[in-house]
């Protein structure tokens, strides 16, 4: 069942979707325009903080591959950017949560995250327990802060 779901996920995520947000979706708070204006107004959050937002689903700093949700650590920079941009621009059918998470994230932020994950030790994309180094002292240095 899990193997089926995984391949299903991979197939579906490889497809391009028509960019349509249906009328029944509920979108609220800031508009995307206001969101991007706010992002411009203040220094970009640190690459560490941006990337750490992924931990709850993708494992600590993107190092987990449990079943369906893939690891991010060690992903090629361009591959990460392409995937995120694909979600942001083409996956508006919001099949998996990535299509909606990426909407308010700026291109600059996506690139900073891509850079961050590309520098981490890669995690095997095969299923099973993934061992990882828990303390990576370099993270503190990669965290260049807002300025």
């Amino acid at each position, binding site marked *: 069942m899990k193997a089926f*779901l995984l391949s299903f996920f991979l197939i579906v995520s490889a497809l391009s979707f028509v960019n349509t947000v249906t009328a029944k979706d509920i979108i609220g708070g800031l508009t995307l325009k206001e969101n991007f204006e706010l992002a411009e107004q203040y220094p970009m959050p640190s690459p560490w903080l941006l990337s750490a937002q992924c931990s709850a689903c993708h494992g600590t700093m993107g190092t987990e591959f449990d079943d369906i949700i893939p690891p991010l650590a060690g992903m090629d920079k361009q591959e990460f950017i392409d995937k995120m941009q694909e979600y942001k621009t083409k996956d508006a059918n919001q099949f998996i949560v990535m299509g909606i998470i990426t909407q*308010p994230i700026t291109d600059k932020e996506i690139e900073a995250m891509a850079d961050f994950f590309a520098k981490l030790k890669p995690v095997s994309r095969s299923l099973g327990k993934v061992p990882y180094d828990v303390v990576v002292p370099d993270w503190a240095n990669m965290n260049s802060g807002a300025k």
Partner: protein
Amino acid sequence: MNKKDLNKKKGMSRRQMLKMLGATAATYGLLGASSKVFSKSAPHIVIVGGGIGGAAAAKYLRLLNADVKITLIEPNSQYIFCPGSNEVIPGWITLEDLMVTYTALKTRYHVNVIHDKASIIDYDKKQLRLEKGTVLNYHKLIVSPGPMHGYHAIEGFSKALADGDFPSAYNAGKQTMTLRNQILSMKQGGTVIIAPPENDYRCPPAPYERASFIAAMLKEKNPTAKILILDAKDSFVLSDNYNFYWKKTFGYGTDNSMIEWVPKKKGGKVVKLDATHHAVITADGQSHKGDVINIIPPEAAGLFALKNDLADTQWCPVDFLDFSSMRHDDVYVIGDSVDGAPMPKTGYIASNQARIVVQAINDELHGKELSTPFIINDCVAMAGHDYGMALSTTFRYAGKGKRLKDLYYIPEAETNPAKQIVRQQVAENWQRTFRKDIFE
């Protein structure tokens, strides 16, 4: 009250800080239970509460900084993860599946975990007193006590009754099992009353997820039973998804519906428990008898935060740049106790607030400018074993003294069964990974 001067927020050099810490450094050596030996002049970060917020703070601070001394205060030796705990009610999983320990924090992350209750903060001396008498000097204090359940806001209700025949089951544990057993042994055709509170409270969709899971359980074992949701509010998050699933699965909206939802404006708000007659009384004076009564009381900041003057009224005000308390210096508040609107109270958010705090503390230790905060909250929830859903919200910094601003997407109900199941699998995957992310 020691009102915070926001202008004082400037990074301090490591040298300045170490100098300042020198005076109290002698104390740190006395507490070393962790196997790693820390410098006597190492800054001491104390964390109150070993739930998701506190444990995430301990682990992620260590990921950023190998040299600080970290102490976590938590009375229990294990923690039952709240996300997923509704699945214990129909017996899809057990409480044991949700149990995590502090072993990894102790051994892998060199966190000194003290199993005691935090009691009183001395803000002038920067000391925390524990119930058994230990006094800890802190450089920075992170407070993550979870919410307090206001049982007494419902007349006739109390913690004793919740621990007895009227389980709230809103912290995973013994009450969760009582609720499960009561539903299992309920007479055929009986009524389960669920009374969700007004906003804000932990995990907004949880009472409705619970109703869904209980309905699935009853459909199999007690098909003529009813679930009556008496709500203290007029709307709830993800209601389009739940309504869709309930219609499809439990005949919602028909005379034969297993689930009935009564909003506040139609007399849903429960104000009183009549324990003797096994009934609840709503604001309009109507009495509803229930074979199982599950009142989820309103919440406020954790008792520790209230006792220590960190809350103004119901919740704790913070500076959203770094979640430092607006009421006392060198103290940060995270998790459900924060006056964080528009952020909902979720474990996901508590963990991301923890990441902001520990980065801010680490940046300050290194004399760096603080990073702009940024938070993502995703909810990958279930309505049943065959139906998952998702929502996503981002929270951006909007300037000094302002609340974070949200942008949310709640996709409409998914009609494709294959997608429904994949989303459900994603929700289960998330639960496993999230437990590991915080506690391993």
